[in-house]
């Protein structure tokens, strides 16, 4: 790819500081934005075909259009930096290596929609990201890009970092708002949507880190330019995180619409020596698993759906022939059960049942009837819960069972798992080991 956008500063030394960021053209977009009308900017964002990078792919310009113009309460911006979807590690790079990009995007967004306060919700483990964002915010205040009368305009905006405290469910937008308010991260029933009643009862915009980091470029180059860097309905380049059994795992910038094969071969260096691709997960563990036959699918929300899965966070996990699909499904069910916030019975109980049944199957204690039981369990979760975490377990688990049914049956017939290890160099797996989460005992 010729010109880099989102990752252009990733290898620039000290790009997380104001002087270096400004030398590279930083905050020029902000200065341009404050000369533009709100509606002009919203139209540019619509034209750009920018899609939400948190996983759902909602068109960003459309979401912005939902924000009420008038409000008695101050309106809020909340940035989702909770990055917890298994296999996903892209927003962390932006926050650690190019924090000003995100901050500039926040200020432009606030100008456009009349937002008064902003919070960047960063998962608490990412202390480097938190420190860098906080010091970059300080620099932005010192420059007059944050605070009151920004750039001499009738424009006040304050921006803060809010640390998460270890809960995957706070990645869900209303769970995140609960966490911002100091409460347990239990998602809210929608409607009302955050644009109407969000943080502190006020209209609130929720966007992902990578989504907002793209805004300065759209202002600078125009929406059409951004759209042209992608495919139909999916504008711009984006970040792809590649991991698993590949030679060069990492975060790479590439156009929307690139194929999985190109990502694997040209960016990820191909599979490890001795490894053959068995399956991949295209965008975090909530997506359906895919087979090598789908390698030529394009990374876009519609194209991945048509290929039988979803783009999700576009962080792809590649798995080789040593991987047991029953174990993957079991490990994932365990994850979602652990992370369920517990308010909906189908999710709380269903994830527990799925984890139990899958654990037994993987250990070789399963029966053939368990496969139907498992299908029943996930059918009862899907669509019956407050938030999408329920679907996030039902949809992938069903896909493992449908696509790799013979592996499940083999476990039952053999009475054990035929795949000896997690990793290609590995020893024996230890899925049956009791959970070592020392925090859970008293929770």
């Amino acid at each position: 790819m010729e010109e880099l956008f989102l990752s252009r500063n990733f290898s620039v030394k000290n790009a997380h500081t104001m002087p270096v960021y400004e030398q590279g053209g930083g905050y020029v977009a902000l200065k341009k934005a404050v000369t533009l009308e709100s509606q002009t900017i919203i139209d540019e964002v619509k034209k750009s075909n920018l899609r939400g990078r948190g996983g759902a792919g909602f068109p960003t310009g459309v979401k912005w259009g939902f924000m009420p113009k008038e409000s008695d309460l101050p309106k809020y911006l909340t940035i989702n930096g909770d990055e917890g979807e298994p296999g996903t590690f892209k927003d962390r790079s932006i926050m650690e290596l190019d924090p000003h990009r995100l901050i500039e995007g926040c200020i432009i967004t606030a100008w456009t929609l009349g937002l008064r306060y902003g919070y960047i919700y960063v998962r608490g483990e990412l202390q480097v990201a938190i420190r860098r964002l906080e010091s970059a915010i300080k620099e932005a205040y010192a420059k007059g890009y944050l605070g009151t009368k920004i750039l001499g305009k009738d424009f006040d905006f304050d921006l803060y970092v809010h640390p998460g405290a270890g809960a995957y469910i706070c990645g869900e937008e209303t769970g995140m708002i609960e966490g911002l308010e100091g409460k347990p991260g239990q998602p809210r029933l929608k409607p009302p949507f955050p644009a109407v009643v969000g943080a502190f009862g006020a209209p609130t915009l929720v966007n992902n880190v990578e989504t907002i980091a793209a805004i300065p470029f759209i202002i600078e180059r125009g929406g059409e330019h951004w759209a042209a860097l992608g495919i139909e309905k999916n504008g711009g380049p984006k970040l792809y995180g590649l991991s698993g059994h590949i030679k060069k795992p990492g975060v790479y910038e590439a156009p929307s619409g690139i194929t999985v094969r190109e990502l694997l071969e040209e960016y990820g260096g191909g599979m490890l020596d001795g490894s053959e691709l068995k399956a991949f997960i295209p965008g975090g563990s909530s997506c359906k698993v895919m087979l090598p036959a789908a390698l030529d699918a394009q990374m876009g929300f519609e194209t991945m759906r048509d290929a039988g899965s979803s783009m999700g966070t576009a962080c792809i996990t590649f798995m080789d022939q040593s991987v047991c699909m029953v174990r993957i499904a079991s490990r994932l069910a365990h994850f979602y059960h652990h992370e369920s916030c517990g308010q909906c019975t189908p999710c709380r109980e269903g994830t527990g049942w799925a984890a139990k049944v899958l654990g037994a199957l993987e250990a070789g204690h399963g029966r053939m009837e368990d496969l139907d039981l498992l299908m029943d369990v996930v059918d009862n979760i899907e669509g019956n819960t407050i938030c999408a975490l329920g679907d996030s377990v039902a949809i992938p688990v069903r896909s493992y069972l449908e696509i790799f049914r013979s592996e499940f049956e083999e476990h039952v017939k053999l009475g054990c798992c035929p795949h000896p290890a997690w990793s290609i160099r590995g020893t024996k797996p230890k899925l049956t080991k009791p959970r070592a989460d020392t925090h859970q005992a008293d929770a």
Partner: protein
Amino acid sequence: MALQFSPGTETEFIELISRYPTRHAALLPTLFLAQKDFGWISVEVMDYVAARLELSPSKVLTTATFYTMYNKTPVGKCHIQVCTTLSCAFRGGYELLEKLEDRLGIRAGETSADGNYTLGEAECLASCGTAPMFQVTDSHGDIAYFENLESDAALDAVLTKLNERIESLPDPRKMH
């Protein structure tokens, strides 16, 4: 003994509450400050935080127990958590956990008798491209990521570094 934030923490706390429209919203970061000063989040610490934020103790309790980063029982001076989610598991996350069990002489979920180390698992820590990895949270509340720990040499280098520092760290059990 009545609990009291250290002077430095007190300054941070005052700045913190100015960031939010409600005191309740300052609860997550305030619990981190409390854990930094008092080592772990006991009922006594929850009561102190409740008083400082003018919240009912039950509100503090429900939040403190919901989030896994608050230790409701003390852990070791260094809390090592190995990521064992998919991408890490594929690159040796479980093997790393076993090696640590051998090196530290404790099983996952346990704390060493001297109170130095607690070993555990973590779910995906947004480090999947540099697997296998673990995070270490020390008793000051500082978190460090150690990544690309496929080789024994890489692991040994990290453990040596941790061992050199461990004497200078306070024991969470004795911090309040």
